[in-house]
């Protein structure tokens, strides 16, 4: 599949994950989120930006368990827990937030 943004076509895999992470921009993130039925709030952006920083540092999309723990460490337990993250991303913070962040599907995620 592909996304159309600002008159540009951006290639994605059959599940909607970007083929090339460098294609990502905030407009595209908003578009992917809309496809996922998510209206991006500052709280959503916080998680998406965190994922992008994580990827920049470690070159992988973290497993959801690892993401939750890392968010707890950085932003506190009121955000680093399953309930909070699944409310933001009902189909899974690993899968959905990574997709919006332009990252590949998390390793080990089926």
């Amino acid at each position, binding site marked *: 599949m592909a996304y159309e943004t600002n008159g540009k076509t951006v290639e994605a895999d059959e599940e909607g994950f970007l083929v090339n992470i460098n294609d990502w921009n905030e407009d595209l993130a908003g578009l992917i989120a809309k496809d996922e039925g998510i209206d991006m709030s500052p709280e959503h952006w916080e998680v998406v930006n965190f994922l992008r920083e994580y990827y920049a*540092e*470690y*070159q*992988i999309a*973290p*497993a959801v*368990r*690892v993401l939750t*723990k*890392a968010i707890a460490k950085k932003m506190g337990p009121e955000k680093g827990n399953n309930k909070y993250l699944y409310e933001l991303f009902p189909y899974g913070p690993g899968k959905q937030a990574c997709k919006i962040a332009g990252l590949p599907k998390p*390793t*080990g995620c089926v």
Partner: protein
Amino acid sequence: MGDKMEEEYEGGVVKKFMFVNRKAPYGTVYALEVLEMVLISAAFDQDVHVAFLDDGVYQIKKGQDTKDLGHKNFSPTYRALEGYDIEKLFVERESLEERGLSEADLLVDVEVVSRADMAKLMGEMDVVMTA
């Protein structure tokens, strides 16, 4: 999932696993594949050990630059292992010395052990996978 299966899972057997890396990081897909296997293994609450010997020690050498190889530099991912609770990393001292390397050249915290101790350690594992 049935009750019985769930019970077995809850009280699951924890085995000692060791993933042994013996090859240089690029040129073959082995290093990357093992790294992915290690990351996935973290989900199963097993006692995971990772060993680096022979040219495998180059996998965790600092300052890797893959621009001219046209290959993604995945060495930063080894530093993510800690967040996956995989902290038992072992490097064979002789393999480092034979390549003029020391612990200071490595990008993650490891335990450096002698060849004899590495052999002993492998003997204590339930499962050893080498690539």
